């Protein structure tokens, strides 16, 4: 099917290694951030979120770090598995009224 990963930055990771995916956000007033995972031919899947009153949040095998000083968000995936191969993108709330702005994404390829 059509790939939404065309022309995206690509991170190649050995299976079992940790992955770090970065996102620079645009608005210092944004107070809510989400990471999504999108596999080919599927809809975006929620991974983890964080609000601006926190700088770190952990989930199962994933950690999100927020650095408000430099407007940077990162997603760390521990012990990367082949099923983690996908496009990952961040979203920020910049408009209010429950709207999000989405980044273009990063392609993660896990090498067995």
């Amino acid at each position, binding site marked *: 099917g059509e790939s*939404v990963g065309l022309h995206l930055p690509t991170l190649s990771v050995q299976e079992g290694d940790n992955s770090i995916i970065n996102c620079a956000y645009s608005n210092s007033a944004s107070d809510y951030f989400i990471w999504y995972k999108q596999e080919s031919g*599927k809809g975006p899947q929620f991974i983890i*979120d964080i609000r601006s009153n926190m700088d770190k949040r952990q989930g199962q095998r994933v950690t999100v770090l927020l650095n408000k000083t430099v407007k940077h968000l990162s997603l760390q995936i521990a012990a990367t598995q082949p099923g983690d191969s996908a496009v990952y993108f961040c979203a920020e709330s910049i408009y*209010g*009224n*429950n*709207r999000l702005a*989405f*980044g*273009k994404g990063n392609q993660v390829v896990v090498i067995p």
Partner: protein
Amino acid sequence: DAGITQSPRHKVTETGTPVTLRCHQTENHRYMYWYRQDPGHGLRLIHYSYGVKDTDKGEVSDGYSVSRSKTEDFLLTLESATSSQTSVYFCAISESTGGRRTDTQYFGPGTRLTVL
């Protein structure tokens, strides 16, 4: 997919024909959204709804209209489809009660639309 279905999943149509895409949710969430996704772009908001009969435009609303007559259904209509509307369309829902707080959006499986 968080209780969200989209229909049809695939459609091929001709330029100038009307097309309606349907999003149905079983979560009773207040907010519903229509996005389009194209290579080289992030998800772009077309229209959204914050309640029954309450809708507003997103960043790429030209050529699209929406309707929400029931909490569970949000329809996207292309009155006269053009080739530039060939895309993958995603519906999303959010439970937010509104105001300044933004909450998580959950996405449906998508509809692939091709306009010839």
